[in-house]
């Protein structure tokens, strides 16, 4: 009879321990799942913001880029105080999209790591696109927008405000 009691006791304790383990595990799963759902900043997000900020703030004169120098000498760029996005917008609005493409291709080559895909849209039109992986299969696609405005050739012929959008994905 004592043997039976000890056996039942052990059985109860085993079941008890099992239930206890289940409770702890379930609680942990719930807690960790909640934590995992918290928003986090991806590298693409930082990169997208960084790229659009750089393109919107870096002045052509500061880039020391041979293509910019050539375009300036040829008279295609008349104001080296323009930022890269301002100049791209000026090219776009003066029907010189190919020059905007060439300039953005050249400038972003050094600026953005080759493992990232990205595109630059001005006023709803695709100006430059570098696609290494499909955007649809990407785990993180991040866009950043800037308002662009300026004057053409240091005159009072103003353009903008137009919206430039930089989208980066990996």
């Amino acid at each position, binding site marked *: *009879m004592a043997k039976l*009691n000890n056996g*039942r*006791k052990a059985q*109860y*304790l085993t*079941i*008890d*321990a099992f*239930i*206890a*383990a*289940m*409770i*702890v595990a*379930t*609680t*942990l799963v719930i*807690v960790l799942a*909640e934590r995992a759902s*918290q*928003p986090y900043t991806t590298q693409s997000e930082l990169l997208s913001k960084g790229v659009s900020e750089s393109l919107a703030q870096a002045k052509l004169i500061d880039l020391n880029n041979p293509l910019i120098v050539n375009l300036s000498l040829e008279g295609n760029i008349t104001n080296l105080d323009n930022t890269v996005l301002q100049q791209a917008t000026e090219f776009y609005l003066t029907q010189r999209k190919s020059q905007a493409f060439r300039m953005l291709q050249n400038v972003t080559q050094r600026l953005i790591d080759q493992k990232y895909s990205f595109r630059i849209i001005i006023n709803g039109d695709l100006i430059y696109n570098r696609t290494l992986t499909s955007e649809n299969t990407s785990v993180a696609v991040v866009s950043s*927008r*800037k*308002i662009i*405005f*300026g*004057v053409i050739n240091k*005159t*009072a*012929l*103003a353009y*903008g*405000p*137009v*919206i430039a959008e930089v989208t980066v994905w990996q």
Partner: protein
Amino acid sequence: MNQAQPACIGKRGIFFTSIAVLISMVLVVTFASQHAVTTNDQIQLTQAKAESINSVVRELRHEYLPQAIYVATYNAFYAMAEYMRVRGRYFATDQIFNATLKEMVVNGTLCCSLPGSPVACADTLPGDVNDPSKHVGADVCLSSYVDPARLSVLKENNLTKKLSDFENASFRAYRVNTTFHKDYSNMVLQLYQDNWTGPWRLGVNITLNYSVFLRDMTINNSENISTIFSIEGIPDPLYLVESQKADEDMSGAPDGVLYRNFFNATNITMWNVSTLYLLTEWRTYKQDSNASSFLMRFYGKDERSPCCGVESIINPVAMPSVNGKIERPYIDWCYYGTGNRCTQQTTGYLWNVTCMTTEADGTQFFNLAIDTYHSLQYNLTTDAREYLYGAGPPPECPESPFPAT
């Protein structure tokens, strides 16, 4: 004893479960006590909103508004110069000029007294000039007199349009609502030229009220936006008005031809007969404290401006109707100025310039004359060689080559 045993086992049997429940409660309490994380999230959200709003305000304050004011003011001056060309007269007073300018900058409209205007308005009457109901867009007013490309620039580049464009753009780009309080009567527009701006730049101050808001976060600002810009490229009203009403043949009736000259500062700093030649040839401007300023030329005030007076030389090749019958120095404000302030005498005061003046009509700088004051300003008498002469054929030019480069 047998009946008591299961109860004893039962109490011990939930020992682990009890411990597990306690652990779970601790975990849940720990998790639930992540108020810090939630607050952190809220702080991050608030920070993101504040960052968005701040970046819009920064962009507005430091970049967009100064540029919008520059573009609107520059185009207002351009349109007003064109209006003066067609009208053939200056703005009647500086108050009328200022009121017209303010409305042109803010709304792109003016009191239009030109034939064909859809609304009758007398631009010499302060009542009409200050009554917006009698005003029309500059593009409408000048539609028969200015090329269409310029008209669309006039239509697009006033402050109200620029502010509306930004309101739309800030919402589309950042989902941030920007609202400008476009209360025309409360906007204060100030123009100035002083020692700091110098004669080639114009300062503009305007007070603007605006709100930027994103959900529950709002910034209300009343700001005095300042910008300084170059006047280069704007047509000189002195030429536009006076050239067409000049009495070149001294018959008593105007027979002038309309000429345009655009403000463009010379980069010459050392003056001699060669650089005077280049100034005349290139039709550029130099500073002179006795000349009238850019602003004065819009309302016909022929007075000296110590900080900001500018002058150019009338070029008889580019302006062939200037035939020498009007015996005045060929400095723009001396030749066209209503005050005739340079010299009213000729002998001993008005000079031809060796190397430049010619006697044959249609040749370079035919009958070009200069007064004693300007001969000193351009260093034509400080040299051992004298470049001035009175009547008679010009002496041989002592410079070789001329103009010296």
